[in-house]
């Protein structure tokens, strides 16, 4: 659901995450605001907590402290199915390994995302087909395992933006791709987000992607020294 409110797409305040209750801080963000339609990239070392940060924003993990707001709604204040429904309507995700539903067709993968959206049932198929066409997939009935990695990435992008999300969270979206198609894939993802007015948070360890984004943050710079995750400064 496109963010039509005056709220930022994503707003993180005083966020910290510990794997164990009394353990060291694994992810910390003092404050981060991503405006509607804005595209930012967060870099950091492998294992530095970039994916965890996305999972926190998506409401798949509980922060140890702080607040995460998506389109003005505190996602960590939502419980159970309300949070799941909110995620289905406001957040799209693109994964390093695409995480498409095997055994399902291209079209069904996109329709699966629309099942949980607020888009009317009667409009879902048309929207899915239009998105796939926009992203250059001409075989909507092909099975996922019949597609190349590059084509799978396009389907993953189509699925992420299908519900007209407020924010798309991309976790190392090009790391599984050949460098020759990685750039095209990023173009595709960014353009799709722009044309759907979705904000984009991309986490990657690939510094070559940095110039493409409105803002670049190093994960370790998002927290004050007091709140920095253990060992954050030792990472390259």
């Amino acid at each position, binding site marked *: 659901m496109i963010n039509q409110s005056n709220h930022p797409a994503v707003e993180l305040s005083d966020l910290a995450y510990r794997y164990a209750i009394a353990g060291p801080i694994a992810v910390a963000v003092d404050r981060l605001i991503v405006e509607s339609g804005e595209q930012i990239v967060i870099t950091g070392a492998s294992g530095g907590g970039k994916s965890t940060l996305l999972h926190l924003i998506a409401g*798949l993990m509980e922060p140890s402290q702080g607040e995460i707001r998506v389109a003005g709604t505190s996602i960590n204040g939502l419980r159970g199915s309300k949070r*799941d429904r909110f995620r289905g309507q406001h957040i799209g*995700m693109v994964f390093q390994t695409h995480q*498409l539903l095997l055994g*399902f067709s291209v079209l069904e993968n996109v329709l*699966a995302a629309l*099942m*949980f959206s607020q888009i009317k049932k009667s409009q879902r198929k048309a929207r899915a087909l239009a998105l796939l066409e926009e992203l250059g997939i001409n075989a909507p009935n092909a099975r996922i395992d019949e597609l190349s990695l590059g084509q799978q990435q396009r389907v993953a992008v189509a699925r992420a933006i299908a519900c007209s999300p407020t924010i798309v969270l991309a976790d190392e979206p090009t790391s599984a791709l050949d460098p020759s198609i990685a750039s095209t894939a990023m173009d595709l993802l960014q353009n799709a987000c722009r044309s759907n007015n979705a904000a984009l948070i991309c986490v990657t360890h690939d510094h070559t992607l940095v110039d493409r984004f409105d803002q670049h943050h190093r994960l370790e710079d998002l927290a004050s020294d007091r709140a920095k995750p253990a060992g954050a400064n030792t990472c390259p």
Partner: protein
Amino acid sequence: MTDWDIVTKSMKSRWFSTMLTVLTVAIAAGLMALLISMRSAGEDAFRRGTGNVQMLISKEPGPLASVLNSMFYAQAPGNPIAYSDYQQLASSYPFAWSVPTQLGDSFQGSPVMSTEVSFFESFEPAMGQRWLLETGRLFDAPFEIVLGADAARTHGLAIDDSIELEHGAPGAQGGHHHSEFAFTVVGILKPTGTAHDRALFTSLDSSWILHAHDRRELVFGHGIRTALDDVDDIDRNITGIYASLGNRQAALMQVLSSLRTDPNWTVANPASTVGGLFTIVSNIDQILLAMAIAVMLSSGISILVALYNSMDQRRRQIAVLRVLGASKLRVFNLVLTESAMIGLLGGFVGIVFALIAGQVVSGVLYARVGLVIEPSLPIDGYLMIVLATIALSCIAGIIPALIAYRTPVVRSLRPIG
């Protein structure tokens, strides 16, 4: 794309495992349906065969043997009754009707019942169902014979065909062929759906002439001719009496108790005797039913195992659905729906199995013992079995559904290796 599509996709993606599980459930449900339907159909068939006879009077050792032998042609009754005794009995009690029957002869394995024409007039093979001729007429002279519907079909006989009988019931020792007497087929009866369909019917005189002939051969040797005039009282025997008091239920109890005090007679009330038989059989029935329930439970376990094993492969799919917005309860319901679907399919296939197997079993029973059993349950009965199968499947699906419910999303999305 709906939840239903996800369920069917999931089932199709593991079609072999799904098919085997459905088959296991189908066998259990089918066995259950078959046992229940056969039990009620068996009882119905036996009750049907006793028709409107209120009393079966014989000299058999007990009422059950009397009913099985004289009404279901299990064996030839072994203890003859003098016809004069029958006449005395018939005049002593206020029967609405009584018909003497004599069994002991056969034709190529089919029993021959000798009786009077009143057998077709008074006795209804099934309550409220009278005898009807398919073709021809009833016998009215010695050596005329009328065929039950199945006897005619089995032996390929038609009107005016000539046949010779064997003395002795089918399979009995000491039987012999009566080539001296040719019987002419004069009528073929319509099917009644009872054991009587596989019998042949002739007059008592015909049977008595055969017996007189056997007796006279012992005295005069082979090659003699025997006619009705040669029949003595010693030949005039019967083996059973079908009787009824009509609507006089109060009198029935009196007559029954009066006859039962006479040690010369065995009196059976066929309906209660059949009821008693099924009380005995019901013990075995309950064992079979318990076995069917055990098979049903094991099929539930097989659903659990099949779904449980699949959960490892489906962890990632469930996690992806959760990311897309599916709630924990929704994925729980998806797995439970799949389990219920297996139960539903298994239940339906099982009912089809039961109907086919029921036809096979009833065909075999009809061919072997002439008992017409039509295994069927009211639609409610089949529905209950399918519902029970679905309920069991849902119970079996709870553990896999809980695994789906508790799938850790983030951990399940981590790249393998």
